[in-house]
């Protein structure tokens, strides 16, 4: 008898973001399919539009990380025009991006990933949210989260021209610089952000690392895969979100390849499966071996944890200290346990805050020289940044007038589609034995994909925050024999 289990977000997007689990005759997991919705036709949509429109238009692909698309498209547009923005412009872009990172990572930790740990993975779903966190840990946390987001939005608005969907980054640099008065204000907020990031790490230390059950959960086998890891690094192989080379390390932590963004097509290929529109990127020079880990499988991951694994450290002192503690606590590099991504995200939060402060105190940051006029004939360009949820690649081809003739985008979550697939399957395998479905299945599966912070639609489309799920177990005739539900 074949059983079919469907885990489906029930209140929205029917047929999307769905997990289907097929059991074998013995009632164990035979296969699992995690389907992520794909928005279609973006490459076609941008053809015929000017390249300088891309930083504004691609902003709209995603309601969660417009800043990441703004930056990747701007860098690709720089490359299309073969123009190098002045140093101050690059710093302003990175400053905006650092503030955005602080907002995004804060939101993920406190509203999404954190509640699983702060409230406990077995807590009722109605409590596993930001409200539960503030009730348990104290009101001041909610205030701090809101304050951090406010500061992040303020910096994005000051530098990006708009609070949501910034518009100031253009081919060759920025449309405007900042005044000394603005600089001071941003510096003040940066100090607060560093304190907040340290506070968040202390909280993690106390609540998660101080609880052996959570440490065991993180270090357990359920969420462990030995894959390759990808991340942007600077000239010293330190993590960088805005610029650098793409570095990939193998499952033993040794450098496999380090390449310039423009070379990405030599290293990344995409595998197609018949059951989903979304493609599975893999390392071309290793090859696609299926949804398996190990050094012979081209599956790689690109997340906060990957960035830490793919680098030799953090470029700022406080984050570096946390980096060292991270690997010391978890038994050395690389860390393969996916749930450690939540901790890695907080270390990145601290790095982003420190970097914010470093950039805003650079004597050149108020320079009025923020734009280099493009003079070359436009052709083709590639821009890569680290989006919070993975390496983001924009590639455009244009005619001699700068009109886009072709585009290719590999967005953050896409990189992780194969690992997410593997993690959800492994979680299901651990909780479905001989036809008996453990009630913890919903939570464990949720936790498996939540670590990746996947962008299901990579658009303004959104699933409910607390991911309502429904598991239906069907017999061979398709009749439901058991239904497990979880609502927000």
């Amino acid at each position, binding site marked *: 008898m074949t059983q079919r289990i469907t885990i489906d977000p029930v209140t929205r997007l029917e047929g999307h973001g769905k997990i289907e689990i097929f059991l074998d005759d013995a009632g164990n997991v035979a296969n699992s399919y995690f389907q992520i919705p794909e*928005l279609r036709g973006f490459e076609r949509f941008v053809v015929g539009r000017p390249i300088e429109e891309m930083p504004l238009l691609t902003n709209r692909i995603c309601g969660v990380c417009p800043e990441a698309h703004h930056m990747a498209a701007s860098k690709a547009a720089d490359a299309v025009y073969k123009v190098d923005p002045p140093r101050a412009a690059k710093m302003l872009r990175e400053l905006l991006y650092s503030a955005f990172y602080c907002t995004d990572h804060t*939101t993920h930790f406190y509203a999404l990933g954190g509640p699983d740990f702060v409230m406990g993975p077995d807590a009722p779903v109605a409590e596993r949210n930001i*409200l539960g966190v*503030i009730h348990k840990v104290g009101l001041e946390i909610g205030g701090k989260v809101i304050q951090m*987001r406010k500061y992040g939005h303020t910096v994005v608005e000051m530098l990006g021209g708009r609070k949501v969907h910034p518009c100031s980054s253009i081919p060759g640099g920025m449309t405007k610089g900042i005044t000394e008065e603005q600089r001071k204000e941003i510096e003040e907020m940066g100090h607060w952000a560093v304190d907040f990031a340290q506070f968040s790490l202390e909280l993690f230390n106390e609540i998660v690392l101080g609880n052996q059950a959570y440490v065991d959960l993180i270090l357990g086998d359920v969420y462990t895969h030995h894959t390759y890891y990808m991340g942007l690094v600077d000239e010293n192989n330190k993590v960088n979100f805005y610029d650098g080379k793409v570095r990939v390390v193998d499952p033993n932590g040794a450098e496999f390849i380090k390449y310039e963004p423009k070379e990405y097509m030599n290293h990344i290929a995409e595998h197609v499966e018949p059951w989903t529109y979304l493609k599975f990127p893999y390392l071309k020079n290793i090859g696609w071996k299926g949804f398996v880990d190990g050094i012979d499988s081209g599956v790689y991951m690109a997340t906060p944890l990957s960035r830490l694994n793919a680098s030799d450290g953090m470029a700022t002192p406080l984050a570096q200290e946390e980096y060292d503690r991270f690997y010391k606590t978890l038994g050395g590099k690389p860390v393969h346990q996916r749930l450690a991504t939540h901790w890695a995200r907080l270390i990145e939060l601290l790095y982003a805050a420190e970097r914010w402060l470093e950039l805003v105190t650079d004597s050149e940051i108020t320079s009025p020289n923020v734009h280099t006029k493009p003079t070359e004939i436009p052709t083709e360009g590639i821009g890569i940044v680290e989006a919070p949820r993975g390496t983001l690649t924009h590639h455009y081809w244009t005619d001699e007038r700068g009109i886009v003739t072709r585009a290719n985008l590999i967005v953050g979550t896409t990189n992780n589609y194969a690992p997410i697939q593997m993690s959800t399957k492994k979680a299901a395998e651990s909780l479905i034995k001989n036809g008996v479905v453990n009630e913890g299945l919903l939570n464990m599966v949720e936790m498996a994909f939540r670590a990746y912070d996947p962008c299901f639609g990579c658009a303004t489309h959104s699933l*409910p925050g607390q991911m309502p799920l429904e598991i239906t177990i069907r017999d061979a005739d398709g009749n439901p024999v058991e239904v497990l539900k979880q609502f927000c």
Partner: protein
Amino acid sequence: MKTLVVGLGNPILGDDGVGWRVAEEVRRQLISILTPALKGAGHTVDVECLSLGGLGLMEHLIGYQRAILVDSFKVDDDPGSILILKLSDLPNYSAYHTASAHDTSLQNAIELGRTMGADLPEDVEIVGISTRRVYDFSEELSQPVADAVPFAARIVTDLIEQVIKRAEEYQRQE
């Protein structure tokens, strides 16, 4: 009385952009609703187009006494059907943008904001338009959804007028 109308959605994702179109239509009609006398009495109506949910959306509502959200809906009704409901009714429906995979639900966000002492609308009303094509990039609405835009805009302006009338009656009673 400060009222905020928010068009939610993605303007380049086909029918998903319907919230923006309705909000833009409401913005055009505001001049006939908000007479100088009403403005003099302290009534203001702001209109925004956003692609946000959860905490981000809540942050935009701070400082308003009333909010009307216009959003695309995925329900079994025919495309172009219009639903009017309160935020508290939402679990029975599925608004596209009032929740987010990357933070918390709008309901939770509002509760959080209130707990933190933020001045948030007591009433959040939602005008939803049932949609069809929301996965293909396009700036065009499908015909039945486009046809619903003036009706939905009329519903929003009626809601604004009702709110203002209620507020004035309340003031008179006081």
